[in-house]
């Protein structure tokens, strides 16, 4: 364990401390929690599913027999068949790649844009805050559907469908993150330790990254872990409205959207993709919560 701790990248530009660093202590605390390991195992399985779906099923998700349409789960086909007679388990496994890529990229994109803009707005105040905050208001007010139609039309068919969708979701989704981050920074920026750092001659960048950010990032982290699941849902909703990923791309969102009309007669088509999605978000929230607690010096 100590070896991994030494290998952990030293945070920022600070020289490595001789004794156990804050980061090291946080990682050690993470390692002791069984929940963290459960979450990690689930995430590793999901990533493996996304990278090499062939490891989990040898059923071709594109080879569908209409004869099997809407057949409930049975031996050999654990999750049953969907409306086209495709194996739901195979499609769930193969859908991990597109769904996780869209959700991860969109979460990363919107958190980065929103986090940076929120941090700058909260710290700088004045004109910078006014400009960033009012742009945020406008973006919040834009209807997702209108934004998605125009951005998708502007992008044309450049890049993959997954990338385009992730870009649309990031460009339309960062505003909430920015508002949340700004609120949190406003609460932190007048703290005594920030004044102390300033008095000690720390640069504004250093104050922002080493003092304000770690103490104000918690709400953003909570939102990010949850929005990951939300983005898969948004992907499904966009498919439902005719704008999301299109066949032959397989994703959990399109599976959920396709299964919705048969809710009453063939619930298994909807249940299994949603169940896998729940487990994914659960693992991420558990991990996010543990990371937040481990890196929060006040919870020691």
């Amino acid at each position, binding site marked *: 364990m100590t070896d991994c701790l030494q290998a952990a990248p030293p945070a920022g530009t600070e020289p490595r401390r001789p004794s156990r660093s804050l980061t090291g202590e946080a990682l050690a605390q993470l390692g002791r929690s069984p929940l963290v390991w459960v979450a990690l195992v689930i995430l590793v399985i999901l990533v493996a599913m996304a990278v090499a779906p062939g490891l989990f099923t040898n059923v071709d998700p594109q080879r569908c027999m209409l004869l099997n349409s809407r057949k409930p789960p049975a031996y050999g086909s654990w999750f049953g068949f969907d409306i086209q007679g495709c194996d739901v388990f195979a499609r769930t496994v193969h859908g991990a790649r597109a769904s996780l890529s869209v959700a991860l990229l969109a979460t990363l994109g919107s958190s980065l844009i929103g986090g940076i803009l929120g941090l700058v707005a909260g710290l700088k105040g004045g004109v910078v805050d*006014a400009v960033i*905050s*009012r742009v945020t*208001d*406008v973006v*919040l*007010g*834009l*209807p997702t*559907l*209108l*934004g998605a*139609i*125009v951005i998708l*039309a502007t992008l044309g068919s450049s890049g993959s469908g997954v990338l385009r969708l992730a870009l649309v979701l990031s460009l339309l989704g960062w*505003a*909430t993150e920015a*508002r*949340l981050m700004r*609120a*949190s920074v*406003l*609460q932190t920026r*007048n*703290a005594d330790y920030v004044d102390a750092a300033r008095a000690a001659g720390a640069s504004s960048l250093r104050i922002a990254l080493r003092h304000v950010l770690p103490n104000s990032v*918690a*709400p953003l982290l*909570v*939102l990010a872990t*949850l*929005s990951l*699941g*939300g983005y*898969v*849902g*948004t992907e*499904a*909703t966009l498919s*439902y*409205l005719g704008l999301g990923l299109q066949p032959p791309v397989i994703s959990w*969102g399109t599976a*959920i*959207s396709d299964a*919705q009309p048969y*809710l*009453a007669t063939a619930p298994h088509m*909807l249940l299994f993709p*949603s*169940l896998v*999605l*729940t487990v994914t*978000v*659960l693992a991420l*929230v558990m991990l996010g*919560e543990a990371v*937040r607690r481990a890196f*929060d010096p*006040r*919870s020691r």
Partner: protein
Amino acid sequence: MTGYILRRLLQFIPVFLGTTFVVFFLAWGMPGDPLAGKCGDRECPDAFVAAATEEFKLDRPLIVRYGYYLADLGRGDLGRSFTGRDVSEQLVAAFPATVRLALLAVLIEVLLGITIGVFAALRPGKTFDTATMMVGLGIIAFPSFVIANLAQLVFGVRLGWFPVTVSDPTSFAELLLPAIVLALAHQVTLSRLTRSAVIETMQSDYIRTARAKGLGEARIVVVHALRNSLIPAVTYVGKDIGGLLAGAVVVEGVFNISGVGGLIVQSIRSHDGITIVGAVTVVVVAYLFINLLVDLSYAVLDPRIRYD
């Protein structure tokens, strides 16, 4: 404080202009001919095309048309849609249902979200916290159209507890089920945000001081901890009210509520630029007011935040 509010109100002017500008270009920049499909299955007669081009000045550059739009707006005229209805009339027809639905949904969301968040934060990692998190994540994992259809099927059709669709004009009672559907998904994020903020606040020195003074636990949580922990929650709720005013497209569609969401989607589908700009502009103005109130509430909730 007054100076700050005045400055914020002054900022409304450039934002209003910027929004109408952006939305105007987005709405008219959508791919496809806005006149296509306006005459049913037939091709539009030349006379109609000429008249529509003349009325909406479709042959002029966008920036000129934007100038005309602003001039009309200055006279209080939001313009007319392709079908000849006044945009203001359409907005007046659509907003009441959406505002009612939004108020009801936010009320339920706040009651559920804050209560669950506080109780989960008092014993983090224990049964209540874990159970509400699991249920919440289950809810998040289903997109809104699935939950809306499921709720309509179970509580509307099968059990008959709620009306399946709403009448027009609609009442609060009819909107209860759609509001619960909307609130369910949003309260999850709200309760998680509240929970994490309360946990953080409960570790601060002034809570220890309050405890040392011998205050009751309920007073410590509600008066001392919750107030300072509400900032992320208030921010999120502000964004939610605005989002709901923009119309809950899916839920409105499922329960047949003729609100703003449906109006915007309908006008996007039919390339009705004038209506899109009008509706979205009203929504953005609502956002500006709500977020001003949210920002002002920061100073009330947390005395460490000051506006000069």
